[in-house]
């Protein structure tokens, strides 16, 4: 039995304040089930990934009144969690241990008076301790600092430039113009990127993703069952994870190569496709740099060539490798690894409106968590796998 995504639920996203993360999650699951043409009682699996506030949790089952689940777990792999949840759901559906699994993430880091910095930059209220405490004392905190050092190393080794990174941001902003859910749609130029404030050099503000409140969910079921449901099935052809570990020692490839180099080829092999078969990519874009290094590690260009590749326009509207076609986390909204998944499912269904790409047979999706410590890849398609049609 092969697996397909049969339902998609996306709540209001952005600066929406009333519901808690758990409420966003419950709403997303209800929306996804309804989208699939299922009722909540049809679900026998629930996978939950908590956001910055530690919710939603397993108690989402109680909030939704779900009974007799055959699969229930919290998944903690940061930005790789949504793709990991779908992988686990696909395994469960393929083995028969569950038949309809909701995978959900929600977060509510923004408050009416707070800033993105308050959401992700605040240290713990107690005095930090030990070596983690030393990093706080040094000021080596927040993802901005560590991703900046990763990007710097890539630049120093391969000649990547800030303008190369800017090309990624500019291309995604152009895509966002066609996405009604996008928070930022006004056109952007590389000059705008270069003139945006430096956050932690070499990263400018326009290299960094947004922070959003909201929730997203998908329903994974068997391809056979999905055929009879309300939406065009989106088949899960391949999946893989990679958790390379952090090597604080001479010879470490920090910033140069990531877990994508292992997970990408593995997922494509499972799907029976190669990079030349891929029609579009939806790549986790915590930062512009994350997209660049993932493209290289997946093999869409040679190692070190990601900057020129982006600057050549392959990724933007009109290019031959459409990338982050909804604007991504840089321009549309941030729901961690669900941002690329939602866009991939929307494109695979052919429901992307004015931003719909023509060729959508093979879609590669990435998730990335921590500072390049956790990676997940999905290969999705509107077509059922070979031999099952």
């Amino acid at each position: 039995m092969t697996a397909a995504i049969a339902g998609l639920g996306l709540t209001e996203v952005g600066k929406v304040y009333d519901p808690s993360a758990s409420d966003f999650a419950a709403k997303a699951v209800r929306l996804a089930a309804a989208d699939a043409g299922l009722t909540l009682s049809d679900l026998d699996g629930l996978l939950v990934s908590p956001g910055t506030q530690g919710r939603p949790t397993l108690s989402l089952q109680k909030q939704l009144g779900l009974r007799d689940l055959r699969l229930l777990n919290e998944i903690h792999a940061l930005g790789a969690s949504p793709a990991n949840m779908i992988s686990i759901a696909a395994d469960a559906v393929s083995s028969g241990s569950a038949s309809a699994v909701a995978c959900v993430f929600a977060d509510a880091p923004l408050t009416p008076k707070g800033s993105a910095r308050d959401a992700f930059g605040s240290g713990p209220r107690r005095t930090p301790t030990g070596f983690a405490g030393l990093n706080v004392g040094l000021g080596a905190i927040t993802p901005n600092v560590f991703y900046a050092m990763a990007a710097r190393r890539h630049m120093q080794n391969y000649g990547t430039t800030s303008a190369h990174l800017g090309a990624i941001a500019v291309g995604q902003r152009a895509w966002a113009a066609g996405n009604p859910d996008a928070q930022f749609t006004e056109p952007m130029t590389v000059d705008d990127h270069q003139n945006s404030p430096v956050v932690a050099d070499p990263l400018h503000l326009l290299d960094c993703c947004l922070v959003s409140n909201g929730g997203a969910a998908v329903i994974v079921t068997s391809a056979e069952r999905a055929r009879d449901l309300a939406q065009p099935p989106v088949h899960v052809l391949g999946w893989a994870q990679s958790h390379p570990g952090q090597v604080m020692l001479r010879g470490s490839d920090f910033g140069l190569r990531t877990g994508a180099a292992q997970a990408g080829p593995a997922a494509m092999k499972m799907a029976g496709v190669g990079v030349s078969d891929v029609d579009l990519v939806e790549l986790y874009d915590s930062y512009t740099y994350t997209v660049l290094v993932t493209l290289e590690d997946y093999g869409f260009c040679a190692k070190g060539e990601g900057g020129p590749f982006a600057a050549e326009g392959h990724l933007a509207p009109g290019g031959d490798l459409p990338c982050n076609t909804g604007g991504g986390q840089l321009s549309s909204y941030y729901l961690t690894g669900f941002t690329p998944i939602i866009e991939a499912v929307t494109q695979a269904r052919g429901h992307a409106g004015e931003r719909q790409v023509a060729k959508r047979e093979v879609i590669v999706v990435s998730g990335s968590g921590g500072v390049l410590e956790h990676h997940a890849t999905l290969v999705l398609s509107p077509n059922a796998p070979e031999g099952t049609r």
Partner: protein
Amino acid sequence: MSETDNRAWPQFQRDSKSAAFFDAAARGELFIRRCLTCDQRLAPESGTCLTCDGTDLEWTRAEGTGSLVTWTVVERPPNRAFTTLVPYTIAVVELTEGPWLYTRLTEGVPTAVGQPVHVEFQQVPGGEHYPVFALTEGTPQ
């Protein structure tokens, strides 16, 4: 030991795993871990040897010299505690013995990977001493 930087860098506390490291810093020594099984030198926070999986590690004094792996000048304060401290430079330093450390550079903005650096020590006002690094005059390696 360099002059103490009296600016209000955030407070932190030692724990049992880091106590020897901070005691050493107070003496002006940079401590790293050494694997008793295979002699590999490891970063201070290590619990397992990356070469042989050994867990018998001891503290050993590092020379305090190394080279720059990467860096960033932090312009936007990560949180309110850093409002008056930006800009400052965070770096990854590769010690001569091999381990990598996250650190802060005391002054000067680097220009190239591989620039030589050496350890200095600072103290959180009323708190722990800790290592920071400075660019060493000379030709980049």
